[in-house]
């Protein structure tokens, strides 16, 4: 009699055995399983959130691969890329440079689960995770390689994580931690549940929608196809959370609270500017905040409630950061644009500001005034005032600039001394994360630590750029060459009536 999957599945996961020749604690060490303090029998309650057979997997994935490849080849040939808005294109440079290697890191994380997860059910699902993440890596690489002839910035899909570019180092620091150093249980909380099930929706749903609206069908199609895999394997976190809630709910609360804050800060950097500034204003589907609230925040609150967990203590601070953090990161990245491998769009033309005011009622007061200074400097030809002379101070937890978590009205320093060394943080929340487990974070040296330590030579911005691997052909500059500032120059001229000779940068 031919069988359905459920007929044989139970047997396929009945593959654990009692080890006789080696100690179980050596074969499944707690530093990788994360199962310390959880009774071995507890893992019998770990039920797969989805079932998939190898047979169905290879059939379905083969079809998906053929589909994406066919669309991609047709679009690359038709020259669609060359017709895209350059502001939008920066979003795909940023995505490929900061995400492609993370996909590959995820192969290794899934592999760790495949080897060390405390139940064979999870270990076997890890295999599909390994395959999925291999797919995403290779999709990103193929996409980027196909476009190399149009733009050398796509080289960074492959190259970024071999450089010291500061933004990439921030991404690497976070994912090296929660994917490659964390035990399986924590990786499931931080990566599967928080990042993959939550935050990556911003990349793979929101950016996909924006990309489609911008006419970038190739990239949109790739993101959407990746999302179909993520939506499946991200569910790995739920049964693990279930087990933790039975045996160590405090650990679940802490792991999720830490991961949520760190993810929120990172995605403010990776996706916030792309959604609210790089995507052409008439093509934006939702603001970053709107998308976060609908897809990430509500969703996270629901998970916490469903599993009997409390909202993080810092919830009010998070909501304040949601209003501001990505605007701060955008202003910061635009100002430090020579340290980027993509060309950011300032995104503050009058029409764009109107959109920003509507979406963020506090934007003008918190950010508009700062952009006004930039605009005045640009229009007065004082370009040196719009560019950095040195590197920003960085948070010892998030690796993001100090002052970038909230608005210009919230710049109180957050510092502590640990083992004789001074640590600085972008927020009280980041400081709290550090204090939970100082040994985990204290040994790391930020870009600024290395700069002060003399590792970056010459000790100047130029030396920093060299150290970061930024070459002239990819180094960031304003994508529209400051053309957006002209409409403000015209305004000043009209009002003052005497400023006709003010030079406009980029001309």
């Amino acid at each position, binding site marked *: 009699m031919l069988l359905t999957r459920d007929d044989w599945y139970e*047997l396929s996961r009945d593959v654990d055995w009692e080890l006789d020749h080696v100690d179980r604690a050596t074969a499944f060490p707690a530093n990788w399983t994360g199962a310390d303090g959880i009774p071995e029998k507890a893992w019998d309650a770990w039920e797969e959130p989805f079932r998939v057979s190898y047979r169905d997997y290879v059939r379905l994935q083969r079809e998906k*691969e053929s589909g994406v490849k066919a669309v991609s080849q047709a679009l690359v040939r038709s020259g669609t890329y060359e017709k895209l808005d350059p502001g939008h294109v920066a979003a795909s440079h940023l995505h490929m440079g900061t995400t492609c290697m993370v996909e*590959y890191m995820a192969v290794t994380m899934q592999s760790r689960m495949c080897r060390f997860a405390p139940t*064979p059910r999870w270990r076997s699902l890890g295999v599909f995770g390994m395959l999925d993440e291999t797919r995403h890596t290779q999709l990103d690489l193929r996409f980027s390689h196909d476009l*190399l002839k149009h733009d050398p910035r796509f080289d960074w899909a492959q190259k970024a994580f071999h450089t010291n570019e500061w933004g990439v180092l921030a991404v690497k620091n976070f994912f090296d931690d929660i994917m490659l*150093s*964390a035990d399986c249980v924590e990786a499931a909380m931080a990566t599967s549940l928080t990042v993959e099930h939550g935050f990556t929706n911003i990349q793979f749903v929101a950016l996909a929608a924006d990309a489609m609206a911008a006419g970038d069908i190739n990239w949109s199609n790739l993101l959407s196809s990746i999302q179909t895999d993520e939506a499946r394997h991200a569910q790995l976190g739920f049964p693990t959370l279930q087990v933790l809630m039975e045996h160590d709910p405090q650990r679940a609360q802490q792991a999720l609270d830490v991961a949520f804050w760190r993810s929120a800060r990172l995605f403010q950097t990776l996706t916030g500017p792309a959604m609210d500034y790089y995507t052409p204003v008439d093509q934006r589907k939702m603001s970053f905040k709107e998308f976060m609230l609908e897809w990430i925040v509500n969703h996270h609150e629901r998970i916490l409630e469903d599993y009997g967990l409390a909202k993080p203590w810092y919830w009010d601070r998070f909501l304040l950061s949601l209003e501001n953090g990505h605007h701060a990161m955008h202003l910061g990245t635009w100002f430090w644009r020579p340290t980027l491998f993509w060309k950011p769009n300032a995104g503050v033309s009058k029409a764009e500001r109107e959109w920003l005011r509507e979406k963020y009622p506090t934007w003008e007061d918190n950010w508009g005034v700062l952009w006004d200074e930039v605009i005045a400097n640009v229009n007065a030809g004082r370009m040196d005032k719009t560019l950095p002379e040195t590197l920003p101070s960085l948070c010892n937890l998030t690796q993001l600039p100090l002052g970038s978590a909230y608005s210009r009205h919230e710049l109180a320093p957050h510092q502590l001394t640990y083992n004789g060394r001074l640590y600085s943080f972008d927020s009280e929340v980041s400081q709290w994360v550090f204090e939970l487990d100082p040994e*985990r974070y204290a040994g790391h040296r930020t870009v600024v630590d290395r700069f002060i330590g003399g590792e970056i030579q010459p000790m100047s911005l130029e030396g920093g750029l060299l150290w970061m691997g930024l070459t002239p052909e990819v180094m960031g500059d304003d994508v*529209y060459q400051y053309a957006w500032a002209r409409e403000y120059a015209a305004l000043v001229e009209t009002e003052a009536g005497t400023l006709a000779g003010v030079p406009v940068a980029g001309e």
Partner: protein
Amino acid sequence: MTNVSAPRPRSRGLKTWSSFGNLGRRPTEYEVLTWNMNHTAGSPALELGPDVNGNVWLREHRDGMRFVVPSWDAFRDPDQVTYGSYVAMQDDAETYVEGLLAQFDADGHDAALPGGALDVLAVALAPCRFLGHGLQMLSAYVQQLAPSSFVATAATFQTADQLRRVQTLAYRTTQLARAHPGLGFGTGERAAWREDPHWQPLRRLVELALVEYDWDRAVVATQLVVKPVADLLLLDALAHRLGAAGATLDALVLENLAKDARRSQRFSVALARFVVEADPGNAAVLQEYLDAWAPLGHEAVADGARLFAADEDDVARVRASVTQDWAGLVTDAGLRLPDA
């Protein structure tokens, strides 16, 4: 910014990844999709403090290895498997197996299995799902510490092959349990794997290999000993025996799974040869590790042959054939299999 005419980005495009350097030829699709993706070659390996869990593990178990290899990314999987080619190849393989299952089911194959075949299926085939899971864990470990994405990616596909094997065996075991209730299909495999004396050397080999955490030693243990021994014995030799005993369906299924094993063996041989050729001192290191693991492999072959061989002559034949093929693989790798 749609109300201004934007300058086009300057086009100074590249033909391929700049990090290929001067390759002197167009890279293959496999190379484009696999090259240079290990980002942990620095010191510390991870962008974290030097004493965190991940960095300590890599330092102790990967970076302390005795293989001297100037450029790990010079390795190539002989089959050049990419994700796309893997799922396509395996979909074809699974379609073939699906066809076998349907055809033999229609012919009433399981009900007609002779008693001798059923014994072999219960004792030797069905418990292999535990072995398969062990090989899956071992393969995943080879992947996660691999110093090159070319090595790691081949190990990823090898890991996935093991899940294919486990699920195929679960399918067949369930079918056999339904066709022949009372013979222990689906219920007796764990006891066989843990207690049948003929399984024990192989189980011991798997368990010991699980805790061989130093990556250079783990590669030798998994790729040159455990995996080839297990596959030559319980795919190739067992398929032959099942065919002779009248279990035609399982013989054909195992022959198909053995194609995955053959790919793994090509990878193992290529990897060992690559290491041997990378530095004159490596061969002795590989040989030393192999010498340490080979006796356990020989024991696994010697006892494992008794799981399914028809008689004493057959035991000798299975042992000789598996050992010969294993030795051939080791020789291809540029090493020598020590005698039993």
